[in-house]
């Protein structure tokens, strides 16, 4: 900064001209053009087969596939959250065997493709034709045929749920560790027990850290359910595939399924957003720092 002439003495303020961000507007124009072109092409290109899409969109087969997808997603997610929570908390244990078992669980299930896991559960009868309930290397209480016990649906749930649990375990671990040690100490100093501290103090405060990745997981799981096609379980995508295997309307049916996925994901995202905001509001010190300052300032 050069030290120029003294600033003009008090005078009428100069008019202010509007600011122009040329570079930015170029980006905007390009984005709008691309967006417009994509939309235009989607609508006008006959190869997308919109009439076929609309014909199938609310057909019974697609809707029942959708229902199966939702059901699978929901049940697997519940298993994932519950089991993942247990495994994630075990991982923080000071006992090396417990922490190690948790580590091994996560290592194995994150390290192998879901596809293989599903196939494994689906063909468990090829490996263990009979499942024996009992003490390892000890007496057995009951025997089941693997095929009776593990139906395709059970295999799907097991495969997806266990896999999800491994991912959720990592999320829970990170979430629990994100809560300030001081919170735990304060709770301990008040005479709370370990379980109580976890449930009443740590987990609720880990929520803001838990929700976004859990939301992502849920959305991911929704789409991973399409893997159960390998078990011939007709969820949304596989239903569409079975249809186009016969009528050869491949692209319109893939679009039909994708539209449903987009809709469900959008709904889930909105839910996630609402939850995030809810927890964000009562927790985040960062966002509301200034507002808080205002409150304190005016209350003082």
């Amino acid at each position, binding site marked *: 900064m050069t030290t120029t002439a003294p600033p003009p003495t008090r005078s009428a303020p100069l008019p202010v001209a509007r600011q122009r961000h040329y570079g930015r507007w170029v980006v905007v124009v390009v984005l709008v053009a691309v967006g417009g072109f994509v939309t235009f092409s989607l609508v006008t290109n006959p190869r997308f087969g919109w009439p076929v899409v609309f014909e199938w969109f609310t057909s019974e087969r697609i809707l029942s596939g959708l229902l199966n997808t939702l059901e699978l997603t929901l049940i697997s997610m519940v298993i994932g959250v519950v089991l993942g929570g247990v495994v994630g908390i075990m991982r923080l244990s000071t006992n090396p065997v417990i922490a190690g078992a948790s580590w091994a669980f996560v290592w194995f299930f994150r390290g192998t493709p879901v596809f293989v896991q599903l196939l494994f559960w689906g063909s468990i009868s090829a490996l263990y034709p009979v499942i024996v309930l009992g003490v390892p290397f000890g007496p057995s209480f009951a025997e089941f045929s693997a095929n009776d016990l593990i139906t395709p649906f059970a295999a799907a749930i097991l495969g997806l749920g266990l896999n999800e649990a491994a991912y959720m375990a990592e999320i829970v671990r990170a979430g629990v560790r994100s809560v300030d040690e*001081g919170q735990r100490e304060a709770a301990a100093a008040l005479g709370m027990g370990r379980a*109580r501290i976890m449930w009443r103090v740590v987990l609720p405060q880990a929520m803001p850290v838990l929700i976004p990745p859990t939301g992502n997981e849920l959305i991911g799981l929704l789409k991973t359910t399409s893997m159960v096609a390998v078990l011939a379980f007709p969820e949304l995508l596989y239903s569409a595939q079975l249809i186009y295997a016969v009528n050869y309307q491949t692209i319109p049916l893939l679009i039909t399924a994708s539209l449903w996925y987009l809709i469900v994901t959008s709904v889930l995202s909105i839910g996630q957003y609402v939850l995030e905001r809810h927890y964000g509001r009562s927790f985040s010190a960062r966002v509301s720092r200034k507002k808080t300052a205002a409150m304190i300032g005016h209350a003082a």
Partner: protein
Amino acid sequence: MSTTTTTTTTARAVSGPMVDVREVRKHFGHIEVLKSVDLAVQPGEVCCLLGRSGSGKSTLLRCINQLESIDAGEIFVAGERIGYEEKRGKLHPLSDRAVARQRRSIGMVFQRFNLFSHMTALDNIIESPTGVLRTSRSTAKARALELLDRVGLADRADHYPRQLSGGQQQRVAIARALAMDPAVMLFDEPTSALDPELVGDVLGVMRDLAADGMTMVVVTHEIGFAREVADTVVFLDGGEVVERGAASEVLTAPEHASTQAFLSRVLREEA
């Protein structure tokens, strides 16, 4: 602000010291943080722990409350051995449950308040009485409101911690500790994370508490407060007690060199 409605926190009937720390040692890795520390605090006494940063003041408080385990020595609070029980002539470490039970009669106030950020001031206070002591919600609530009133925050019951200033948060934290009806209160630099403007309110609450006869161990840099409220003062340096005595004597005429250096340094800043 400080309306002393009820005087529930009087010294308990204990013969002998309320807090009795005997030859306690503690090290982290290779560093010996406490080197055979002795400390006795009588019922109703206010004891201020002074000492420069890193001298082991916080560690000592944390040992009393079993937030740290000790390597050697013994600690008794209200006559009860802390952390161990005697059975057939041997010391057995207490179970987690028993440790939790012992902690209930020791109130602790932290430098960074540590209020549960997802609960209102009221919920912070009643969480432990209802959840741990199984007090009925209505009783706990009535008592909590009384305590909030006592720390001058009767109108802030429904505020979340983030809606309170640091000083207000610290006062809620004190109320929260008092709600468990502790035999002794430990304070770890309760005002050093506060803006200067807000220090006074917290010290005021502590002053009232002392006047009501609460046994208190206070780590602080507020020499003014120590001079006014403390019965005894203990100086720690490098994990050892270098000087101890009546507050009036030690603070005006310190004998040990490091105490003198510390006091002159802190007082210079306050000028």
